[in-house]
């Protein structure tokens, strides 16, 4: 198992360098640069522009700039934001809990609704439940996130007035960010109504971000379950006289989950991509919104560093999924 993890970590290093190159190059392909955008409509004198370029090091050849960036990275220095002057890593760490909280809520919704829905649809194959669930899954999967988010806001926030439109908690409440998770912090604060406010802010973005993973997980679970239900060992389990519930929930589900776990791991990338849109729609102060804002400001270090850190999160989660995979599938476990 240790060697397995080590070999997977070995793959992470070239991936990391690759993402660094792509992030570095792509943000510079966009027209404009941070100095031009900061100076705004008033414009900037050529002398001042050159001065600032030298100050930020953007006048040097690109390969040299990249080398400096890379050596900085290896020392744990992700650079400073051009706009706020604060270290990129520090900003990331401040904002990441908001995204993490949202993503955890989304993936929890997706798994705990998607897996049972997929199992039920497989058992009742061809029934109205199966058809409605799979139809809904396809619709959810096909619906653009921003459109779906706007529809929910219009209905639940605008028409029904049940949920707030944006942010993580009502401005009425103020308490220290102990864990960075609003749900937990609001509980710790003991302020009346704070937790309710946090939940009501989280519901819609959570649903929006969960939709695509939920659809994918439900469909994957259904097809894996259908395949497994036709296996000989499921017949053996029934031939033992086990109750139907045990046959499905123990003998079949354990096998069907193997491909589903891989899918769940892959959804982390989808979540991060979805977080960018979801956070922008709901003004959720997480790294998704941070990244979008930084792209508009051409804040090179933030975009580069943010992309790298997000990529690292995705890679680490996938590594964790691979390890988990070994636990649920004895055939992969080291001999």
């Amino acid at each position, binding site marked *: 198992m240790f060697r397995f993890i080590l070999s997977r970590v070995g793959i992470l290093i070239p991936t990391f360098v690759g993402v660094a190159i792509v992030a570095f190059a792509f943000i510079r392909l966009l027209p404009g640069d941070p100095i031009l955008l900061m100076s705004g409509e008033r414009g900037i004198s050529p002398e001042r522009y050159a001065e600032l370029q030298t100050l930020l090091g953007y006048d040097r050849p690109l390969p040299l700039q990249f080398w400096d960036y890379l050596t900085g990275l290896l020392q744990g220095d992700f650079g400073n934001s051009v706009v706020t002057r604060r270290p990129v890593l520090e900003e990331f760490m401040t904002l990441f809990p908001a995204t993490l909280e949202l993503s955890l809520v989304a993936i929890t919704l997706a798994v705990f609704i998607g897996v049972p829905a997929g199992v039920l649809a497989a058992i009742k194959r061809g029934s109205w439940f199966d058809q409605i669930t799979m139809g809904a899954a396809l619709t959810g999967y096909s619906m653009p996130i921003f459109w779906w988010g706007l529809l929910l806001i219009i209905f639940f926030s605008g028409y029904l007035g049940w949920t707030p439109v944006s942010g993580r908690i009502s401005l009425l409440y103020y308490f220290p960010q102990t864990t960075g998770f609003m749900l937990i912090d609001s509980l710790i604060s003991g302020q009346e109504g704070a937790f309710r406010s946090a939940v009501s802010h989280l519901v819609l973005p959570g649903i929006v971000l969960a939709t695509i993973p939920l659809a994918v997980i439900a469909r994957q679970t259904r097809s894996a379950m259908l395949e497994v239900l036709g*296996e*000989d*060992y499921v*017949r*053996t*389990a*029934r*031939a*033992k*006289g*086990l*109750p*139907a519930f045990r046959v499905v929930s123990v*003998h079949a589900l*354990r*096998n069907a989950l193997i491909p589903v776990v891989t899918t769940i791991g892959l959804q982390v990338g989808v979540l991060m991509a979805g977080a960018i849109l979801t956070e922008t729609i709901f003004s959720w102060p997480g790294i998704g919104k941070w990244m979008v804002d930084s792209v508009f400001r051409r804040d090179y270090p933030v975009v580069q560093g943010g992309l790298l850190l997000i990529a690292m999160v995705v890679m680490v989660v996938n590594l964790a999924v691979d390890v988990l995979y070994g636990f*649920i*599938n*004895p*055939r992969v476990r080291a001999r």
Partner: protein
Amino acid sequence: MSLLTIKNLSVTFQTASGPFKAVDGFNMTLQPGEILGIVGESGSGKSVAMLGLMGLLPPTATVTADEMSFEGRDMRGIGARERRRIVGAAMAMIFQEPMSSLNPCFTVGFQIKESLRIHMKLDRKARHRRAIELLEAVGLPEPERRLKAYPHQLSGGMSQRVMIAMATACRPKLLIADEPTTALDVTIQAQILDLLVDLQKDHGMAMILITHDMGVVAETAQRVIVQYAGQQVEAQGVETLFTEPHHPYTAALLSAMPERATGDRLPTIPGVVPGQGDRPNGCLFNPRCPKADALCRTVVPPRQDETLGRALCHYPLNARIGEAA
């Protein structure tokens, strides 16, 4: 009282192209401790009839029978809960593919002990003791270690031994063995058959052995049923079946045994078992029967009496003059 009585069992599958009768009028009785062989090619309805008895067919199958009783209990329309109390306990089954019949995600111990917990309500320690005892009984060395093994760590023969241990865990009165040796190496086949016969004698359990290997039948069974295209074409005691087959299909199966072949080439039965769309008129075996004539091709054959092995044939073989209908 006989252990198992089945009269006129039929199994029909709903398929995309209409209903398909996989088993048509299956009859049998089985005494306690008896070994019955059911032979026939693939697609002759041997397994389906037994799966129907066990209640293991998919929901697209409809099972009907005039009688289907096990230990005097009517198995037709039996509730799921009550069936579960019998299936896996008094009536157990082992399958053709031992490697895929064990759940790859659970240890051998888990899978054996599960039956013991559900049916016999044994406590943890007793389950462990009984599981080791069972693995010893099926001839697996190092039972303690095997209990912790996963199915992918076992060979085909070992897997089938585990399946047999699982099936006999609750001391069944009837063991249905559905081609238990087909997927195994020839050397292992004999070992598994010997094991089954030994266990059958030790426990005094009855056994139904489904196979398409006439040699296996000759070695183990006392009575034989021959199935063809869902129909029972002959039923006889094993000795007389081998010396005096009454249905041409039985005779053809016997002459296709390598042990009996005399010429340079092994005789075969030309053609295949008819499927859903290509059922012939008259006798279902007529396109492949060397003796078939116009009558066979048009009129469904009658069921001969006991002395002619209840053969489903217009012209039963080995009939003494005056006996044929």
